[in-house]
């Protein structure tokens, strides 16, 4: 490395080499294999009517042959139609992100920090800018060129808009501009990046806008100028974020100063700690995500645009219901905690730490759903809510099981993943995401299975036995885990009794309405067993042990 530019290029290579090699492998793999696969299937990716051809093939092959073969055929056709273009999009997105030259800053908990160490090197800001800007443009052009020239990409309408090299270069310029110019405003930066990504991915829906001759060049220039100025300002800390404070932050700070001067017990202090650490933020995020579309639609209504359509109402209702689940899942699957050392030197047992987290999660789940319920109550102001009710058509008595079930599920995300995240092991902390993928795969497999009544009936007969077996394993593991936790003094006997005292009514609260509502259906037994299986017990027992691994490495 004889020049600063070579050193920067080496750093990029060193940080991303595995993925760069993977990208090169993907291009090569598709270039070599994909045309042969298309020829085998009689699929012509260059045909503009590929979508019609695909639909015909679905119709012709979809309903013949045994189920597994049909599934494979369907997936194969989907792969032929969408595979290379989807992978091209992902690889180009990754390349664009690579040239923003950001990295995770664990101290600031910022996943997109431009490394300040680059500013201590004896290189000018224009040099840094041009190295990354030109390097990025060249990389995008090279990668795009490789895809387009070596792989016969599908001409499906939905992908055509992405087959535009200048569009990708504009994305890179805008990405660099947003990341560098808004380094001091991380939240604004995240929102704008999300908007850019969704806008770009959603571009096929509004091709008329994206094909306008002025839009892309203007955005390209805007992004480049922003990136150049932003890098300069970042280097000299000239843009330092908002200097004003949110009024409600001051009010809440005053209110907290007036709060209890003394916690009644360490457990109460720990509960406050966990509430402040994550649970309050979850409720706040939920409230913002719920409130923003409602306010926008109310303003729209006020401006005389008329009530929302039935479809919009339905989408809005689904969005609102999904918020607590998504926010809690994302928190549960977040990276291992960074404040562990501070906590672990407090005179608390692992059980007390765990109980505080569980209680805080219960509060945030309940509060988040109360916010969603309030928003659902406000929905009739926006349009015809009865149409939504009619479409969803859930009989009111079933709400007695659905509502507590959703609250439990929300809490469960954090409760069952506590051990994985608390273990301090990055690989274990990734398990919640893998489990979610497994759940999706399971649901997908079941939906496929349900299309064939013979397979479905055979599977359905097995379900109760399978669930009963899993419950037996769950109780055995729970017994072993609690015994071990008690033996090691990680958990006080009182805590075990307290949790069991919560677990039992929690299960009963779901079982009783299930028994009442489903008593004369075939769903009664599997649902009851499923409820017992879902309310966490064994993983709660293992949590203090996982915390002990982290605490006493």
């Amino acid at each position: 490395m004889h020049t600063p530019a070579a050193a920067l290029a080496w750093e990029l290579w060193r940080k991303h080499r595995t993925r760069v090699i993977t990208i090169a492998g993907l291009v090569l793999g598709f270039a070599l294999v994909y045309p042969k696969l298309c020829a085998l299937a009689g699929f012509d990716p260059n045909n503009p009517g590929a979508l019609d051809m695909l639909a015909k093939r679905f119709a012709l092959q979809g309903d013949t042959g045994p189920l597994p073969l049909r599934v494979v055929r369907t997936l194969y056709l989907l792969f032929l139609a969408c595979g290379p273009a989807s992978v091209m999009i992902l690889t180009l997105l990754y390349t664009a992100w690579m040239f923003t030259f950001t990295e995770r800053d664990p101290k600031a908990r910022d996943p997109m920090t431009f490394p300040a160490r680059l500013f201590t090197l004896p290189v000018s800001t224009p040099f840094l800018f041009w190295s990354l800007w030109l390097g990025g443009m060249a990389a995008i052009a090279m990668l795009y060129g490789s895809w387009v020239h070596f792989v016969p990409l599908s001409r499906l309408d939905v992908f055509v808009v992405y087959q535009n090299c200048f569009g990708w270069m504009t994305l890179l310029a805008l990405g660099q501009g947003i990341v560098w110019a808004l380094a001091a405003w991380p939240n604004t930066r995240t929102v704008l990046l999300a908007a850019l990504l969704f806008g770009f991915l959603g571009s096929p829906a509004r091709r008329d806008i994206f094909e306008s001759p002025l839009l892309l060049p203007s955005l390209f220039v805007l992004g480049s100028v922003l990136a150049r100025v932003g890098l300069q300002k970042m280097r000299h800390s000239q843009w330092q974020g908002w200097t004003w404070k949110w009024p409600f932050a001051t009010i809440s700070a005053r209110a907290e100063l007036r709060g209890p001067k003394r916690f009644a017990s360490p457990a109460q202090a720990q509960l406050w700690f966990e509430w402040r650490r994550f649970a309050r933020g979850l409720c706040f995020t939920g409230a913002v995500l719920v409130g923003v579309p409602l306010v926008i639609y109310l303003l729209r209504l006020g401006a005389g645009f008329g009530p929302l359509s039935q479809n919009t109402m339905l989408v809005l209702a689904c969005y609102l219901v999904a918020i607590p689940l998504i926010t809690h899942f994302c928190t549960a699957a977040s990276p291992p905690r960074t404040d562990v050392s501070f906590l672990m030197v407090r005179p608390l047992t692992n059980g007390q730490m765990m109980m505080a987290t569980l209680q805080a999660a219960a509060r945030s789940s309940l509060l988040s759903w109360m916010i969603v319920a309030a928003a659902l109550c406000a929905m009739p102001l926006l349009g015809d809510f009865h149409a939504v009710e009619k479409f969803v058509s859930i009989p009111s008595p079933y709400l007695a099981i659905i509502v507590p079930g959703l609250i439990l599920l929300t809490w469960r995300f954090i409760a069952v993943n506590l051990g994985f995240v608390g273990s301090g092991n990055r690989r274990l902390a990734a398990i919640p995401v893998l489990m979610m993928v497994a759940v999706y795969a399971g649901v997908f497999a079941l939906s496929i299975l349900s299309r064939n009544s013979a397979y479905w009936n055979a599977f359905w007969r097995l379900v109760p036995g399978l669930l009963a077996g899993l419950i037996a394993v769950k109780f055995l593991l729970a017994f072993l885990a609690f015994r071990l936790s008690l033996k090691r003094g990680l958990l006080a006997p009182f805590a075990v009794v307290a949790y069991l005292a919560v677990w039992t009514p929690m299960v009963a609260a779901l079982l009783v309405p299930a028994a009442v509502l489903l008593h004369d259906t075939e769903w009664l037994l599997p649902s009851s067993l499923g409820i017992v299986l879902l309310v966490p017990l064994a993983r709660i027992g293992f949590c203090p042990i996982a915390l002990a691994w982290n605490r006493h490495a």
Partner: protein
Amino acid sequence: MTTSANIHAVEITGLSRKFGSKLALNQLSLQVRRGRVFGLVGANGAGKTTLIQHLLGRLKAQSGSVRVFGFDPVAEPVAVLGRTGYLSEHRDLPGWMRVDELLRYTKAFYPQWDPAYAEELRRQFGLDPRAKIKTLSRGENAKAGLLIALAYRPELLLLDEPSSGLDPVVRRDILEAIIRTVADEGRTVFFSSHLLEEVERVADDLAMMFNGQVVLAGTVDEVKENHHRLVLRFDSPQLSAPKVQGVLSLTGSGQEWTAICNGQREQAVAAAARAGGRVVAESSPSLDEIFVAWAGAESA
């Protein structure tokens, strides 16, 4: 009845710890008497922080035993941590808390928390109660950590590189005064440091660590008394350091060389004479010189 736990705040016997293939602590044994200020010095990577992490129960002994006030910190963390104040080298306080919240939160865990003392320290350190931890400078962060480690008057104060980030005024006038006060009240202080003058000024006892082992332990006076600094003159200029058995280090050039020896002064003088040198001056070495001599001897 006088038991070892009544005399010693910390007892470590044959402690070993490996991280992968790297041996961080090697059969380390150490005792810290109650009511003393114990300074732990060592080169980077000697194992000081690893040792302190064992005292807190953050690391479990792979072999050997660790006892703090007679308790195993892993088996009985609450019993140990309830009597121990700790200042981390990394100053890992939660950034989202404000200073007053940090005090309120920490107070809940320690019944012996002294609010008046906490407030006095806060004023002394000049910490704004409304300031968020993440907005504090490195030095202020260290002061906040020190404040919550001191305010409940712990029986054992564990300080991992306490001077790191503190300006000379705070280091000399406040930290050292606090450490002395804690010891005068009959409590124990265990601190690691790179600053040997600080250790010399503040500590009653010290231990030097190299490569995961304690090579030297005792009171500061004993350690200094047991080491000698001899200035040797040779008849002819020496191109390289002459071989003198029994000395820890030999530095200099030409005819005059300075030797640091541990204990047996007479043997060192005799060995120097055999090598053709004679003692022209003799003095007591500083801790700094002793440390450098041991570091050289251990790496040789």
